[in-house]
Structures are given as C-alpha cells and as structure tokens.
C-alpha cells in the first residue's frame, strides 16, 4: 500500500468502529479519540517527505497490509507459563499484555505497597476515573505527531500504574508485551504511569513477539512524575526482523522530579523511538539514555524532543549506536529552552560506530534556546572502532573477533553503568554481549527462532 491508501484506510477503519468504541468508552476517552481523529485527518500520515520522519522507513512499513481488530484474541495457552523471565536475582512484579490488551489471567500482584494501583487501562478509565482523566492523553494531545494521534484513536487497552504520594515501590514492575497469533497485525498499546509526590518507581517494559508475522506496533507510554518523584524507566526492544515499531515515550516532570530513562533497542526490523520530555517544574532532571544495536538491513531511528520550560532544570541525553552490515540509523535530538527557563543545563551526546562502509548513520542535533543564562552542549560522532586499541588487545593474545567484541561492549557499557538495578544491568549486559556475538539473544523461552539468521 502507499501512504495515501494507508491514510484512507485508517480513516475508514476508525469510522467503522467508532460507534462500537463509543459504547464501550467513557465519554472522556471517546472525546479524546475524536480529537485525535480530527488531528489525524488534518495532518495526514507523515512519511519520508516529512522532516521528522525522513529516515524512519515509513514507506517500507506501510507497504504491508496489517489487520486491526477490536476483538480480543484469546491466547490458546496460559501466557504466564509461556513467559518466564530469565533475569536472575531480579525480583519483579510481572504483568503481561497480550497483543496490546491487559492479559486477563495475569497473576495477582502480591506484596506491593498499599494504595498502589496497577490495572488495565480499560478498567482504570471507569474505576479510577478521577486520576485517569487528570492525566490521560494530556501530553499526547500537545503533540502534533500523527502516529501518536493514531494510537490515541485506536488504542483500547494497556497498563495503568498509579503510585500515590510518598510511596517508594519495593519491587520493580515488569511489563511484558507479548505479540502472538496469526496474521500481520497492527497493534496499538498504551500505558499510563503516574508517580506521585516523593514517590519512586522502577519500571521495565519488554517487547516480545511469539509469532513469525509482520507486525506493526504503535506504542505510547505516558509518564507523569509529580514533585520530587523519581521514575527509573527501561524499555527493552528485542524483536524479530519482520517487526516494525513506532514507540512513543511522553514524560512530564514537575518540580524536583527525576527520570532515568533507558531505551535499549537490541534487535528489530524497523524501530522508531519518539521521546518527548517536558521539564515543566523547576529543578526537574531528565537523564535520557539510549543504546541501539543494528545489523543486516535493520533500521533504527531515535527522535527526541527535550523541552525545558522552568528554570534550573537539567537534562542529560546520551545515545549510542553500533551499526553493522547494511543497517541504517538516525538520531535527531531537539532541545528547546523556553523563555524564562534560566539556569537550564542541557547536555546532549550521540555517538555511533559503523562497522562496515555500507552501514549508515545520520545524526542531527537541534538546539532552540530562548533564554540567555543557560548551559547547553551537544556533540555527535560517527566513527569506527579504534584501530590502536584493537592492536593493543590483540597484542595481548586476544583474538581479533574477541577484541572487537570487547571494544563494542565497552562502547555501550558506560550507559549500562548508569542503571541502578544491578541484576537488570547484568542481564542487559549479557543480552548485549550475546547480541554482539550474533547469538540467539532472547529474553524468554521463545519457541520460534525468529532471531536466528534466515
């Protein structure tokens, strides 16, 4: 399909199902959908002709036809058994999403702090109406992104987490997105995470595909961190070559609020990560890290906007990528310092290694500074492995392949060292090592060898 046909298809599809959605939705959610629909209709579907989506491989994604359905697809097996996380010593509350829907047989979450709410979005929109409506789609509606609008139109379920004020969650919450079943699917997933005042949460989101179809996923995770709250956010993308993902992370930080975000793109066909960090409150802090490993004809595109609105806020952005074979990558990092956001500190670094002459990386910093008393810096590099270091390692008896692996791992390791949860850090390190070796690097007992070479 071409872009125009896809655009029309999404419009037709929405018109077809909107009455059904209206019956199931709260008024608030349905109005949100309609507003998104209007935005989508007006803006159209951006492809490579749009500056923001120039290198995202949209034409390639939309050349396939995907099936979308509101009907639940019941899993034939107990997904709890299917998924068994191998993260040793990492004690997490595991929550499964099945094709974007909150899995009905999720194990009960035991031993978590009182008053913490963890449930499906479907449930939250009615049962926790007040909190839900205070936050849901607030940051998304401020965005002009058509794919985010598409998600707001179609997404019907996902995870809702609310951490009340002064609550430090004792265990990491691990959300596992399982995509399964037959046919090429268009999956819309939506998560809403609210961290209250002085509250703390650590969250891991893992994407996992259990079929061998071509799926196109559009995710949104919205996170709101209230005054002095702290969120450790990790997303682990380990998807088959046939998969296409547009992943959106929206962050809003109030006074003294903090986020450490890790976007770890280890494997996937086409991955586009949009990250919007809004530093609304004074003294808020966003540490935004990214690691991406690509080979074959894979594509990775990181697009980030960091918006400093209030004074004394700090952002550190560090993204690193290794591209092998014919992989293509892109990084676009925009930093906005609004008038009045004095004493802003904003640092951006993007470093990349292209292992072959065919691998291509594009990197683009974009700083818009409207305040006069700020510290901002940016730096970007695209290079090769250090030949002198390689020779040094080999001279000590470490063979060429192993020496390269050591250097590649070292290149991304400084990001892993920022992870506070040690078992997770170790697990990610071993996944990255396996990935760099070209070994099967799966998170769980996957029955399909979808990551092995075709």
């Amino acid at each position: 399909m071409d872009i125009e046909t896809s655009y029309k298809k999404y419009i037709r599809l929405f018109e077809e199902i909107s009455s059904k959605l209206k019956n199931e939705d709260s008024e608030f959610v349905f109005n949100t959908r309609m507003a998104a629909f209007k935005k989508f209709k007006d803006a159209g579907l951006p492809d490579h002709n749009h500056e923001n989506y120039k290198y995202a491989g949209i034409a390639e994604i939309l050349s396939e036809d995907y099936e979308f359905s509101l009907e639940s697809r019941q899993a034939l097996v107990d997904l709890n058994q299917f998924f068994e996380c191998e993260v040793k010593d990492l004690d997490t509350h595991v929550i499964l999403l099945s094709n974007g829907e909150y899995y009905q047989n999720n194990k009960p979450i035991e031993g978590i702090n009182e008053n913490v709410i963890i449930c499906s979005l479907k449930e939250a929109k009615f049962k926790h109406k007040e909190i839900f409506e205070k936050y849901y789609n607030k940051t998304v509606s401020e965005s002009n992104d058509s794919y985010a609008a598409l998600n707001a139109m179609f997404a019907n379920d996902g995870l809702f987490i609310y951490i009340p004020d002064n609550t430090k969650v004792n265990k990491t919450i691990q959300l596992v997105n399982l995509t399964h079943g037959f046919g090429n699917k268009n999956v819309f997933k939506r998560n809403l995470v609210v961290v209250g005042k002085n509250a703390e949460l650590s969250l891991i989101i893992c994407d996992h595909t259990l079929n061998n179809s071509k799926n196109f996923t559009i995710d949104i995770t919205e996170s709101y961190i209230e005054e002095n709250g702290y969120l450790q956010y990790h997303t682990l993308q380990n998807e088959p070559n046939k998969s296409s993902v547009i992943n959106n992370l929206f962050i809003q930080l109030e006074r003294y609020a903090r986020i450490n975000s890790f976007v770890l793109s280890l494997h996937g066909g086409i991955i586009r990560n949009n990250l919007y960090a809004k530093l609304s409150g004074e003294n808020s802090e966003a540490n935004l890290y990214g690691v991406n490993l690509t080979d074959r004809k894979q594509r990775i595109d990181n697009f980030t906007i960091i918006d400093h609105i209030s004074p004394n806020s700090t952002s550190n952005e560090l993204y690193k990528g290794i591209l092998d074979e014919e992989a293509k990558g892109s990084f676009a990092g925009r930093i906005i310092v609004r008038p009045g956001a004095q004493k802003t500190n904003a640092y951006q670094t993007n470093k990349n290694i292209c292992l072959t002459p065919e691998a291509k990386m594009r990197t683009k910093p974009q700083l818009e500074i409207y305040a006069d008393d700020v510290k901002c810096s940016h730096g970007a590099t695209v290079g090769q492995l250090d030949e002198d270091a390689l020779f040094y390692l080999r001279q000590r008896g470490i063979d060429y392949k192993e020496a390269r692996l050591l250097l590649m791992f070292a290149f991304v390791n400084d990001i892993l060292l920022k992870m506070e949860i040690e078992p997770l850090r170790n697990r990610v390190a071993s996944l990255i090592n396996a990935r760099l070796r070209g070994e099967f690097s799966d998170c769980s007992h996957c029955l399909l060898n979808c990551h092995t070479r075709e």
Partner: protein
Amino acid sequence: MLSIKDLHAEINGKEILKGINLEIKSGEVHAIMGPNGSGKSTLASVLAGKEEYEITKGEIIYMEKNLLDLSVEERAKEGIFLSFQYPVEIPGVSMINFMKTAVNEHRKYQGLPPISSAEFLKYMREMKDLVELKSDLANRSVNQGFSGGEKKRNEIFQMAMLKPKLAILDETDSGLDIDALRIVANGVNKLKTNENSIIVITHYQRLLDYIVPDFVHILFDGKIVKSGTKELALELEQKGYNWIKE
C-alpha cells in the same frame, strides 16, 4: 629463539627498515639504541605484527616458526610481548576483564582450562605486588586516566601476568622519573629467567644501568650499524649519535 635476516619493511611506500640482521638466544637481553627515526619502534611493531607495515624482503624465524605467517594474536600467544611506547587508553574495558580474557586466551592456546575467578584474583594480586602497582588501577578502565608512569608500570604488570618468552620493551623508560624507572626495571629483572629473552629499546644508557644487556646494537637509518657489549652503550652516551653518523 629469534633470528632476523635481511629484514626490509615499509609503511605507505616509505622504506623504514633496510636490511636488519639480528640473532637472539634464550636468556639473552639485547639493547637496541639509536637516534629518533632510525627505525627502532618500527622494528618493535613489525615483530608484534602491526599490519600497517609491509615486509618487502627478509625473514623472521621465531622458535622455529616463520613469524611473518602468524597473526598479531598468534604471535602474542606464542610468547611475544610488546611493552608499548604509548600504551593505548581503552575506556569501558576494565583491567580485570582485559587481563582475564588475555590470560584465558593464552591458556586456551596452551590447552589449559580457563582460570577460576578466585585463582585469577590471587594471581593478579601477586603480579601487582611484583611490579608495585597500586591496587585500584586494576578496577579502572585500561590505561584510562593513568599517569605516564602508571601506564608504563601497567605494561610491566601485563608482562608479569602473561610471562612472555620474548619481551620487547619499546622506550619503557621514557616519561619515567628515577624512582619509577627503578621500580619498572626491578619488575623486569624479577621476570627475567634463563628461558626468556628481552629486547630493550631505548635512547639512553640510564635504563641499562638497571636492566643490564648482554648485547647492545645501534640502529641507524634502518640498519644495525654497530653491535657490542654493554660498554658500547656507555661509549655512545659519551660520544653521542654523531659518532655513528660519521
């Protein structure tokens, strides 16, 4: 142990080594001296197998093997160690991980099982003491943020860990103060046995007060122009390199 015959080497079309002949037996210490640009470091790099250099003529026989057929890492595992004039900083690779990988690669080559973590740490501690290396260096990234002296000491520490048959010390004395020089030289001497050999490349006689050579060779314009015993180094120190050039 090592036999170099009529060795010619060039880089980017420029000939640097113009017919080197050198014989080294087990247990010997050879010093190679010479002015800047005479080819000392090139000789060290060629022995280690740096691929930028093209060997246009001659041969190198090491332990009855044709050295030029071996890769950089094979040479290392056959016992050739180069103490770098400028040790490379490798951010993100810890000294422990680096050395453990290197030691295990050597063991694998010798048909030995990997060393256990406990054994390795004990071994590393012993070797660190041998070269008087401060303990915290081991937990840092390879050479990153090390002072000039620490880098050189770290080279000798790695030599202690890997126990080479032939160690090439490329200007190990440069950038060292007199105390550091003594520590480094003591470390080298402790590692010296009748089985292994050392090539000391230096500008100055000073280091040779500590690491006493059996033979001294003077390299000039890509050739060994004079060989002798340790007295040659003293003579060179007094007369300067102009004496050679005449």
